């Protein structure tokens, strides 16, 4: 089937523009596979992030026909409107080039809170302690979808607060209990709606708030 893929292009020092690429693709192919093919066959200067290709690394978040999604697990036939797919970089981040964004506004704040990356799983087996990486894949989609993260650069942001909520040991750094922390959230829940792995950042932020209000968390620093 023939699709028209329209990609927002941003290059250093240049004005943003939209380029259209007509491609043959199976409707079950991922948007990412199609973008990769465009970069190999039609325009080698196309910049975009990708790694795992199966929805666990968070690299390929982008805005697809107006909605934040992981391109690797989005089938082109399911999102095309009239055969057209418009791709834009995530909102709320500085654009490096084309669809690639600089996620330092999210990862750069980890130093304030140092969240854990491993979750201990209740496996129901006393002699085996199971562990897994947190389901949050740090894709940045929740930042892009969040009206506050888009307008308030100091905001710690949905995924980071959710990670703190899940990995905390009864203590949180003062920045969490501040204007830049849980109190910036307006409970729009766009983060939870758009999260591609069901991590529910919005609910986690509300849980942090409740625990702070009840005095169940010790605020440090």
């Amino acid at each position, binding site marked *: 089937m023939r699709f028209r893929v329209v990609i927002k292009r941003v290059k250093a020092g240049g004005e943003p523009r939209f380029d259209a690429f007509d491609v043959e693709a199976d409707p079950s192919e991922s948007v990412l596979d199609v973008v990769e093919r465009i*970069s190999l066959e039609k325009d080698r200067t196309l910049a975009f992030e990708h790694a795992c290709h199966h929805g666990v690394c968070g690299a390929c978040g982008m805005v697809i026909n107006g909605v934040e999604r992981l391109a690797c697990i989005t089938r082109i036939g399911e999102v095309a409107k009239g055969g057209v797919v418009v791709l834009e970089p995530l909102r709320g981040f500085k654009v*490096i080039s084309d669809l*690639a964004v600089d996620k330092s506004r999210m990862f750069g704040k*980890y130093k304030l809170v140092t969240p854990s990356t491993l979750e201990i799983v209740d496996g129901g087996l006393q002699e085996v302690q199971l562990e897994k990486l947190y389901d949050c894949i740090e894709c940045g989609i929740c930042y892009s979808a969040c009206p506050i993260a888009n307008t308030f650069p100091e905001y710690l942001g949905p995924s980071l607060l959710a990670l703190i909520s899940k990995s905390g040991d009864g203590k949180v750094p003062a920045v969490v209990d501040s204007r830049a922390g849980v109190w910036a959230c307006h409970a729009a829940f766009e983060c939870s709606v758009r999260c591609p792995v069901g991590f529910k950042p919005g609910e986690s932020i509300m849980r942090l708030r409740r625990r702070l209000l009840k005095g169940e968390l010790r605020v440090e620093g």
Partner: protein
Amino acid sequence: MTKSVLVIGGGVTGVAIAYDLASRGLSVTLVERGSLGAGTSGRTHGLLHSGCRYIADAEVARECYSENVTLRRIAPFLFEKNGGLFVAVTEDDLRYKDFFLKQCERAGIPVEEVPREEALRLEPNLNPDLKAAVKVPDGTFDPLKVILSFAASAKLSGAVIKPFNEVVGFKVEGGRVTSVKVLDKTVPREYEVKPDFVVNATGAWADKVARLAGLRVPVKPSPGVMVALDGRIGNMVFNRLNKPGDGDIIVHHRGTSVVGTTSWVVEDPDSVKPPREHVELMVKRGSELAPIVSRLKIKAVYVSSRPLIGEGAASTGREVSRSFAVIDHSRDGAENFVSIIGGKFTTARLMAEKLGDFVAERLGAAKESQTASRPLAPYWLFFEG
């Protein structure tokens, strides 16, 4: 004056090499044509090898296990360390067991046979008709985060990491590379660099890159199809207790499980699509290990091309050793150019150490590799500064 090295390739081997060389005091720049992990490394199934999969070659297995231990020590935050099970489903599998156990002992890998009831208690989604199970020290990881941790460590050691910068040409004069032409896709513009040494760490693409300098690398791009299921069906890695074959592993990490893999050989790693019959085969073979596989929705199908060493008459890639090779191009007319191929994600740090020894000797850098003992930087530090 500090000698400069250009590392080509932003997969796990490239970033580990950049880290190794920078921490020895060399001036390192890494260029990658896409984003970090955009090639083979980012698309692995995410298995921290115990070495048991390649137990027929006890030395390769020993190497894998040793690196497994090292990585757990220097970066515990990156790995789900839940172990793995090698499971016999057929009589043929069962006949492989004694050889498997003997080889594990030879390679020094701590494994333990567990009763079938215990295996099913540990992992209820395994085939209830399993005939034997052996517990092994496998682990799992998110490949991109491991790559970013090596890249962060490289940056903190002074390396410059440049994604979206593709090498498009070399100037070779007087038996050495005198300049490298790079396309910076973010501008876009081409520019030249004049490093003292060039490292080709582009894996399955190593021959394509080397050809730009008039050189050849005996790499066999060997793609494998993987099928990601929409759901996590276990904690320990599920392996088929037999010699390596199609669809003999299920790796769980984060909220998903990945069934892998097939193996064939292609000329160009850039033009590979997953054959539909490979997907069907993964589901069929995966279901033999864990029947639930056939009932789950497929979340993604993808292909990753291994950079196998292309010696011998291998046609499927399975016959090729999973060890690695450092290819010195000085005898081909480029004395400051080296390629590295083969290996596995799990052994990338070791590959970087050996390649680092080679480059350090050529450039007269005195420092030894420290990457086995120094903690790896958290991946989020890559995004700072």
